[in-house]
């Protein structure tokens, strides 16, 4: 592994200024939470930091705190702690379920929410050091290559899929993301945090160098809300979603007042499906309606040469998830 200097900031401001300081000195700096993703990238020489800024030494950023009727979740909370938190489990079930499907117990015990949302793509061309768009090159090797796990929506010029389970759930919950950087703090809607390759193919989110995701904010869950996260894997454990669906339904007895349907594993960002959401609003959810919602979820899909199977898979997953959630006691 390349050697680097380790720094232990006590505050977010200090972390941000350590990154700035490194950049001023012509060095590259990486922010590290749990380190599960970053260390793998460093070992493969995909990322070559001179300075590591260890966020784990900042106190108090690993908590779920009540805020304005909802909650504020620190970016350093581990996925294990998030998935087992009683308030998240009961009020924001989709997020707890997403967190507990990530990777392995070992990684969930260390990996953080911030790191999971900001992890780099797991495209095999990127991770194996191909000079692709994500590695600063000029082409996406998946287009003419092995693209069975790549995007069917929102692709071009890069066709990566966003790998984060929790990001998909957070967008479905309408979370707000708190970003801290050299010019202070800003709060952005979760949906605006992620960046399509056609906007910028070198990154997956709006974070500029030196900026970090410090926390997410969730509004109070209204009465009658139910939510869930379903993930299709190509084996029984320890992998990213081939397709996933985060669904939030706000029910008034039998009637769905409003819905949120966000897909994972199919696009370079968590993929919201407004047409599916509109079909559900104000309706009693029947098997026939769930089928229509599944159809709407894949309208406009543009599969590559080897991933057309994701279209019927997505359709079925959305149909089943919506129906099961609506009929759940």
């Amino acid at each position, binding site marked *: *592994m*390349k*050697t*680097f*200097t*380790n720094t*232990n900031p006590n505050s977010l401001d200090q972390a941000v200024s350590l990154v700035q300081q490194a950049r001023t000195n012509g060095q590259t700096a990486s922010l*590290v939470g*749990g*380190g*599960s993703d970053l*260390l*793998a990238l*460093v*070992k*493969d020489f995909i990322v070559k930091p001179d300075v*590591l800024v*260890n966020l*784990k030494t900042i106190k108090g950023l690993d908590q779920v705190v009540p805020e304005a009727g909802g909650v504020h979740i620190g970016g350093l909370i581990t996925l*294990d702690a998030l998935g087992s938190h009683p308030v998240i489990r009961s009020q924001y079930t989709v997020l707890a379920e997403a967190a507990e499907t990530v*990777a*392995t*117990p*070992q*990684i969930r*015990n*260390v990996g953080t929410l911030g790191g999971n949302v900001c992890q780099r793509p797991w495209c095999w061309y990127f991770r194996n050091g191909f000079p692709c768009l994500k590695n600063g090159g000029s082409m996406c090797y998946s287009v003419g290559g092995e693209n069975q796990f790549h995007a069917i929506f929102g692709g071009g010029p890069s066709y990566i899929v966003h790998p984060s389970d929790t990001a998909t759930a957070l967008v479905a919950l309408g979370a707000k993301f708190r970003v801290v950087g050299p010019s202070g703090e800003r709060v952005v809607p979760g949906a605006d945090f992620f960046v399509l390759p056609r906007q910028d193919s070198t990154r997956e989110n709006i974070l500029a160098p030196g900026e970090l995701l410090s926390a997410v904010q969730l509004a109070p869950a209204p009465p009658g809300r139910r939510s869930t996260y379903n993930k299709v894997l190509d084996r029984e*454990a*320890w992998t990213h979603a081939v397709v996933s669906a985060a669904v939030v339904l706000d029910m008034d007895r039998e009637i769905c007042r409003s819905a949120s349907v966000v897909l994972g594993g199919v696009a370079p960002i968590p993929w919201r499906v407004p047409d599916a959401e509109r079909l559900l609003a104000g309706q009693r959810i029947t098997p026939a309606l769930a089928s229509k919602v599944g159809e709407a979820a894949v309208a406009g899909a543009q599969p590559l040469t080897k991933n057309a199977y994701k279209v019927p898979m997505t359709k079925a997953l959305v149909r089943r998830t919506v129906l099961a959630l609506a009929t759940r006691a």
Partner: protein
Amino acid sequence: MVNVTLRVNGETRSASVPPETTLLRLLRDQFNLTGSKLGCDVGDCGACTVIVDGQPVNSCLMLVGQVEGREVLTIEGLANADHLYPLQKLFEHFGSLQCGFCGPGVIMSAKALLDENPDPSTEEIRDALGGNLCRCTGYTKMIEAIKGASCILRGEEAPLVKSA
């Protein structure tokens, strides 16, 4: 260099190592605790699993800068020269390992599970081993051994009948 002091298997240990040293390298190269294995080195295989502050983690993905003051338990901390830990004893009884490379990591994942959940279901055991790859056994005999060890640790008689 980074100076680090931590607890390993109940003893206070210190070292001065480069900042890119992982906990796994620290254990193996500095403390000569070579039970934890270097497999994939990126968190895929779980052969390096140790217990840090009560939770199983991949020691290959934890930098020395993150282990200051923490309590680490490795496979070497389970047994002494005279007595195997029940999990180890039952792994031996059931023939749960073949090549054995994954064994220390699997046993540490199982130990963390039983510490938290003394009577796990088969499904819970399978979930707990989700991050430990074994390419020899198919896991069945490991699950039998973990169930047996859970009985012993609860003070009950272990079912020692082997599956066909």
